[in-house]
Structure formats: structure tokens, C-alpha cells
């Protein structure tokens, strides 16, 4: 069987929740934290960049 791609999104549940609220796909966000971790600030920036509602 072929190997499924490893999910590379690293984020805490809190950040995931925020992304969901902002309607953001975390796969499109680049993480600036340790080992590519997506931080809350990354999500907020990405959301702002995408012109979505500011939170």
C-alpha cells in the first residue's frame, strides 16, 4: 500500500479553533513557530491578509 502523506499541520487545538472561526484553512498558513508550528499570530495575520473579519 502506498504511504499516505503525513499531515504536517502543527497547531494547538486553540489555534485550530481560531482558524475555524476565521474560516481559514490551516493548510494555507505558514507556521512561524518551532518546527513550523502555526501560532495564533500566524492565523490572525493570514486572516487579515485574506481580508477576512478582524477578530
Amino acid at each position, binding site marked *: 500500500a502506498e504511504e*499516505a502523506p*503525513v*499531515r504536517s*499541520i*502543527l497547531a494547538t*487545538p486553540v489555534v485550530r479553533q481560531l482558524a475555524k472561526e476565521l474560516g481559514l484553512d490551516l493548510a494555507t498558513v505558514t507556521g512561524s513557530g518551532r518546527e513550523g*508550528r502555526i501560532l495564533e499570530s500566524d492565523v490572525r495575520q493570514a486572516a487579515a491578509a485574506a481580508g477576512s473579519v478582524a477578530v
Partner: protein
Amino acid sequence: MAKLNLVEAINLALAEEMGRDERIIVLGEDVGRLGGVFRVTDGLQSQFGVNRVIDTPLAEAGIVGTALGLALGGLKPVVEIQFMGFLPPALDQIICHISRYRNRTRGRHTVPLVVRMPYGAGIHAPEHHSESIESILAHIPGIKVVIPSNPYDAKGLLISALRDPDPVMFLEPKRIYRAIRQEVPEGEYTVPLGTANIIRSGKSVTAVAWGAMVREVMRAAELVEPEGIAVEVIDLRSISPLDDDTIVQSIKKTGCGVIVHEACRTCGMAAEIIARINEKAFLSLAAPLERVTGFDTIPPLLKLEEHFLPDVFRISRAIRKIAQF
């Protein structure tokens, strides 16, 4: 290669190893003449004699405590506890001695013994015949706890257990004692203690189970497959030591998991597995880990038994829930 069920595979492992290692003796209630209430030791007494397959008095602490002495005396006792529900009288010897002798004596003594027991519900047995208290055993340092889910693993794990220098609790899911037939090679092979087995791969959800629940989880996995949910199924095989690496690797891939056991929920093995995942794969978690377990109730008598046991319906719901989280 013969197709064997779990009972036959265990019997074969015992017979072969007893042939190879004359230090191995089998003891317990009704294991000799009767061949055990589930016939797991059938034929061993006629093959190896009454000094190697021994019917004991009815006393679980006595059996396990003397077995420790037998082990200290250079033998390798294989104890049968008739049902896990009757293990509690022997817990004292396991907690206070079997698990400690090595550490207590700084390695001067080792305790190579195996305690086998049928466990779990689902066969409409009487009161106290359906217990699953494996997490109590997993909380005890110094012992190992293994649970096969199929005949092949049963033989291989038991041979490993018999060759291990340390005490091993060998739990046999009696619900599937005769439910599964599988090709089981004759002769030596081992399945290592402490290693889980990925028996189905998938990228959507990780499902962890052991013993009789593996079959239910596999069925649930098939059920949700057409819905586009690819379940990776891990057969834990060893409860202690726990192969958390295999679980963690899978969770890193799938981002979510369900753990299934029939033991009571609170302080069951699933809690420990969740704690390990939390420790080692926290940032990969895209959904809460789900537990599908027995309730925090006494295993009911047979008329309500089906309500107690996790089934395909409950498991598949939990899988969907986290897949859609």
C-alpha cells in the same frame, strides 16, 4: 499449515515449548485432567505427565504465590487463572511480589513466569466471568501484559512470554476463542512483546484496540470506508509495555484517533493512551481523541450484556464524529 483457532494456537504454543524446555510446567484449577474449562490445556497432562501439568487446589493466591516460588526454584510456571474475574485474590501476590522480586533483589532473582487467563465479556457467562481489568495490571510496574487478537499472534506472543525472563500476564479474549481460524505455523516463531501491529492502514482516523475489540474495530473500519473515511487500525497486542511510538506515528498522520476497549471507562487503558498522545503528538491533534469503552458499571449479567460492550455501531459513530470534527 493448519488453520487453528485461538484455543488451539495457545495449546500448540504450550505443547511445543514444553517439549523444548522441560522447565516449563503448567498449573491451575482443572488444567490437568479436564484440560481447562475452555480446553486450552487439553491433552497436555497426558503428554507431559502429572508433574508438569498440575491440577491445584482452588486458591488463586496460592497458585500464583507458589508459582513465584517455583520460578525462584528454577522452573518456568505457566499459571492458568480460570477467569479474569477470579484474578483479584491473586493481585496481592502480583502487586507485592511477582512484579517486585527482580527490583527488590537488584536482579539477584528473576521471575520467569506466565499467568494466563481468559478475559472479557460477550459469551453470556455467569456473574464474575466477564471482567476486563487489564488497566489495573498495566498500572503495576515490573510486569508485562499482552493480549492477542488472533491465533497467529497468540502463539507467537505466548512463545515470547514463555521465553521472557520477566513475569508476563497473558490475557486471552475468550469471546473470540473459537471465532477466528487462521493459518498458524507449526514450530518456533515469536511475536515480540511490547510491539503493536498496524493491521489496516488509512489516513483519516487512527483506531486502537486489542483482544476481541480488534474484530469490532475492523468491521467498523470497513463500514465507514465507503464514506471516504480511511481508518488505520492498530492492534495493540501489548498493554504493558505500551508501544506508544506506533500509535503516535499514526496519529501524526491522521490527526485524530479513537481508542476502543470493553473495560470500564474511568482509568481504563484508553486514558493512558490519550495521555501519551497528548504528550507526544499534541500539536498534530485535529480533534479530541475519542474513547469507546465499557461503561463505568459492573459487567452486567447476560441479559444486558450487549448494552455494555462497544459494538460496531458505537465505534463507527465515534470514527465519523472525529473524522468530521
